[in-house]
């Protein structure tokens, strides 16, 4: 994707188009607050990538000098249940209102959402309140009756990946490694996957909207990698909420992920990054399932394609220890990527516990190779 920079087609320099394209591109930008954030944690991320949200906060605090609050009283937004057809809209709307009330009580106005499903939920409730004011009134009354709380709407609401995108240049200046193969000097080929609920529902809430999502592509461009543009780039990962949540229905989920893997395979990606907890999880685990069930592996030499969150790749490039930021709990081994990036790591530390004790090793899958 061009962001409006000068480009060349058929040897003609189209500089005159630059300002026009920049103007168009500006319409796809969003406001991302500069500091003082209130973090809303993700149901899936806490479990599947339990170090990711703390890494986000570390990068913000230690590398960027920003402040972010982690509230003990927060809860789920209830979005997974809502999108599985379990909850009335009014319930989810009031849970959302409580989260905003907690943010108010803590003295913040910039709401940062760690989950893409949640981000879509917050956007949906804000838009519903805007277009159907009686629902806002009803929610205020329901929240007050249930909890005694009142709330004001956040001044700024962003997804956590928006913040990494906003500071991509500042992070870029501090990088110890870049998205470049340390052996060949060539850019790594990076697939970026944007969760559907980031901008497909309310395009104006996402960087680049639904048509030109740039929130992760901007990181790849800034940090020296090469974007992989493949046919099924914007296809859903296949979560499907109730489709994944039931063992009987999981064929929906793995098949949609496979559609994506098959489509990206010819481009030989070195890495997948995603901004949605579910997508990151499925793109990692379904590679294991496809390998074991079908004998098919993606990536090089049977190891699969590593799948990282946006802060995990930022943390790695900034020089954080891969085993302190939780890369050992991904099913697809991170080492082939670490080797390409030229990152030195301690293999012995990978499976050590809190006190440095040896926790043994996970079993090896039959087909998917692991380290």
């Amino acid at each position: 994707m061009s962001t409006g920079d000068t480009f060349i087609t058929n040897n003609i320099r189209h500089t005159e188009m630059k300002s026009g394209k920049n103007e168009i591109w500006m319409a796809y930008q969003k406001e991302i607050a500069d500091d003082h954030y209130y973090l809303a944690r993700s149901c899936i991320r806490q479990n599947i990538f339990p170090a990711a949200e703390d890494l986000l906060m570390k990068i913000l605090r230690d590398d960027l000098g920003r402040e972010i609050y982690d509230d003990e009283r927060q809860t789920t937004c209830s979005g997974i249940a809502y999108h599985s057809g379990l909850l009335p809209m009014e319930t989810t709307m009031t849970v959302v209102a409580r989260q905003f009330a907690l943010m108010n009580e803590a003295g913040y106005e910039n709401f940062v959402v760690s989950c893409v499903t949640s981000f879509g939920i917050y956007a949906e409730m804000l838009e519903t309140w805007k277009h159907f004011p009686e629902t806002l009134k009803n929610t205020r009354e329901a929240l007050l009756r249930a909890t005694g709380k009142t709330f004001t709407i956040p001044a700024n609401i962003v997804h956590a990946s928006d913040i990494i995108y906003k500071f991509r240049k500042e992070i870029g200046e501090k990088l110890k490694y870049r998205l470049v193969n340390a052996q060949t000097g060539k850019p790594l080929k990076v697939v970026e996957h944007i969760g559907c609920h980031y901008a497909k529902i309310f395009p104006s809430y996402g960087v680049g909207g639904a048509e030109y999502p740039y929130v992760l592509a901007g990181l790849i461009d800034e940090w020296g990698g090469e974007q992989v543009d493949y046919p099924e780039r914007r296809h859903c990962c296949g979560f499907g909420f109730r489709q994944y949540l039931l063992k009987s229905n999981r064929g929906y989920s793995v098949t949609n992920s496979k559609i994506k893997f098959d489509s990206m395979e010819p481009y030989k990606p070195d890495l997948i990054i995603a901004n949605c907890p579910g997508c990151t999880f499925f793109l990692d685990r379904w590679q294991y399932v496809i390998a074991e069930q079908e004998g098919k592996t993606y990536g090089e030499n049977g190891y699969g394609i590593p799948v990282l969150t946006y802060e995990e790749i930022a943390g790695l490039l900034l020089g954080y220890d891969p085993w302190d930021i939780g890369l050992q709990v991904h099913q697809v081994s991170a080492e082939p990527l670490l080797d390409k990036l030229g990152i030195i790591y301690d293999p012995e530390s990978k499976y050590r516990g809190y006190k440095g004790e040896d926790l043994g090793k996970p079993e090896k899958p039959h087909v998917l190779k692991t380290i």
Partner: protein
Amino acid sequence: MPTLYEELEKDIRFREGLKACLNCGVCTAICPAAAVSDYDPRQVVNLVQERNESELENLLKGDLIWKCGECLSCKTRCPRGNVPCYIIQALRGLSIEKGFFIESEQGRKQLAIKRTVGDHILKYGYCVYIDEVDNETYPEQGPVWKWMRENRVSMLKRLGASYRENRSGALRNTNKESLKDLKKIFDETGGTARFEKIEKYSSEMAKKMNKEFSEEKDEYWRYLYNE
């Protein structure tokens, strides 16, 4: 008594989602559910806008409305501003309210989701919690997860989480006041009533199917979840 169509119109998502469908099929072209099953959002929207009550009842008692994955890719692409997924959300809600969901194989599976994600919210404060995610129920989690879960006390501490601790952080114990707030919100806004309806209608169906029905992962749950 209001008609089914009138009931649907009470749902703002239905009013937002259904304007005028010209049956172009763009929603079906973009739909991940249509890519992997016989689900066809164009067909659902077309049927709903016919306003035929007996057809609507069939829809609410059938499998089709449960096949959508709620990715909402259809919202981005409809050239007329319809949102098939919003219509599905309204249909799913009404199907449960009327007790029609137990009539279909897919619809009755709502109990299995209520007993996991739904109950987890009120128990843990989150839809998902590591203690509940075992490899037998979720085999795709694979061997690394199994290892992590077996060593979770030490491993999660190393990774900076607050597992089973009463302080902020990942996987902490959600405090009692927050859980109480959630329960009261559910009571106040129809969440609890919805859960009770799912349990009540499901117990009737379990009896009809001669499956043991009690709580949590009983025989009826295992049947719904696995088959």
